[in-house]
């Protein structure tokens, strides 16, 4: 008998009493009168930056303003003209090391915790984590209240990977002192875009 059969057989035999799945439709998930405002406030509280981009502004200008010292900029987004690297074209993920700013697209944001749903849309997803600074383009009209709404909405593509990112990478593992920038992005900036600029 395979281990799979062995495990399932034993488990089935040992269960004593069974319980029904509860109804989850009556969960009163937190909602906000202004989800965008809550999202912006939460982003700040988790150590991220949130910038509402005026209609028609060139995001490349904004990125240059935010990171004037940046030399290596990685993105596969067509609207990012200042990219010096493209995660679709590198021969291996490690080539993206040394990226000062990685720019990616988020699908929607979650007000309760500043999470942004980001399905993989590039060959090497390392760009999302290996970059020193992360910039996420997000349509500001696409903010849901909470994770119940979020999980009803997430979609995957053929890459088979997606992540919620909330703020920059962080740790408090050394004497409980909070430090921004552990193994991934040391800063995270969300550029909230007008629908007409998408």
């Amino acid at each position, binding site marked *: 008998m395979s281990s799979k059969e062995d495990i399932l057989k034993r488990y089935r035999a*040992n269960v004593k009493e069974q319980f029904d799945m509860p109804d989850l439709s009556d969960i009163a998930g937190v909602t906000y009168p202004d989800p965008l405002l809550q999202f912006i406030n939460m982003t700040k509280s988790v150590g991220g930056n949130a910038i509402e981009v005026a209609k028609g502004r060139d995001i490349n200008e904004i990125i240059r303003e935010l990171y004037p010292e940046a030399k290596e900029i990685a993105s596969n987004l067509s609207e990012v003209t200042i990219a010096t690297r493209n995660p679709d074209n590198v021969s291996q993920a490690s080539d993206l090391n040394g990226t000062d700013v990685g720019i990616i697209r988020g699908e929607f944001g979650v007000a309760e915790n500043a999470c942004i749903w980001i399905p993989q849309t590039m*060959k090497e*997803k390392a760009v999302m984590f290996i970059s020193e600074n992360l910039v996420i383009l997000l349509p500001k009209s696409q903010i849901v209240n909470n994770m119940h709404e979020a999980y009803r909405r997430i979609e995957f593509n053929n890459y*088979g990977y997606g992540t919620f990112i909330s703020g920059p990478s962080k740790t*408090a593992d050394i004497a409980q002192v909070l430090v921004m920038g*552990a193994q991934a*992005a040391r800063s995270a900036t969300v550029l909230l875009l007008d629908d007409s600029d998408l």
Partner: protein
Amino acid sequence: MSTQHSKAAKAFLKNQTYAHWHDATFWAVRTKRDNMAYGLDEWEQLREKASQIKRHTITHLDKYLDQFATAAERNGCEVHWAKDAKEFNEIVFGILKNHNVKKMVKSKSMLTEECGMNPYLEAKGIEVVETDLGERIIQLKGQAPSHIVMPAIHLSHDDVGELFEEKGISNEKGNHDPTYLTYRARLSLRNEFLTADAGMTGANFGIAETGDIVVCTNEGNADMSTSCPKLHIAAIGLEKIIPNYDCLAVFQRMLCRAGTGQPTTTYTSHFRKARPTADHMHIILVDNGRSEWIGNPQHWEVLKCIRCGSCMNTCPVYRRSGGYSYSYFIPGPIGINLGMLRNPQQHSGNVSACTLCLSCQTVCPVKLNLGDQIYQWRQQLDDFGTANPQKKLMCKGMSMVYGSPGIYNLGTSLAHWANYIPSPLMNCSLNPWAEGHKMMEFPKKPFHKMIKDYE
């Protein structure tokens, strides 16, 4: 009447400065959790739903495991099943050998700790690099974790600074600033991610409906471990499988709020298959006792646990004794219970490290009856052959006295004679109460005599 825990706790408390810091630090995390709970009107509703989802899922787990494996295989993953720790380690080694792996980076997994995976692989010549900063620190120090979420909490920033100097990770002697040390660790680990042949993650959740492995981190180390190396192995305990995304929303909202007092971890990552430039994604489902525990009528609910750590943060005994006082690698209320399921003879000593205050089960996001279960373990110690003989004798004595009103009344009438026992005799080592307390005064008349003047 001492145990390994009580002796270790006594030693822990000798360093009063450190003991107070430890207690205050974890109480602060408990307070952060409280603020999260008070901030959501639906918090208690979520706890109840979480408890019910888990009770349903773990009592139908065979169905969900099958569904999960089918979905994951359909996604393109290779799914393995490990009966026990030995088989798990062998499966991991087999995969790594097939891919000529010399070095593997890994994100946090208490399951791999449970199976003793690191020493097993290292003995076979494979370098294993922990990438969660806390785990990396204790790996370099050769220590075990002292908490399931904050494994290096027992070390000061000076301890870490000196360690990094010794290991060549930091290059500024005497600079023990946590921000500086974290940056130096980042540089060191960045090199490991880029040169590793494989990446291993644990899993906070596995989604039966879709085959996703879900990993939650603040550091981003699970994502770095799986974005650079070409092989991903995910290790997941059976009980981590949950039905679908509607259920996941409940747990994702609670995990970090309960465990660290944050609304979310920075990264909540969903893995369905290997990235196109990688070779494979393997998932190993691990039993190692879980299929037996579900059959234990008093203790099956430990399988509800989502490993958030909030029970140990609130436990007044854990906060004042530290993770190393417990004989099992997981400390605190959940550790006491898991240790007893793993090996009751070895871990019975932990069962008295509890006042039955029940804060743990009141805080638990899945309403695990941790304190009630500790009480129940105590009733079984005699059967395990681990009941303390002194305690047993004392209880027999009490039973006799309380069983006979005559003897009892005599005892209470004579009790006040104790007031006259000389202090050195009263406060000797045979009277453990006197260690921390001044003896109480026994009144001349007990209540049952006094009341006669009023009736």
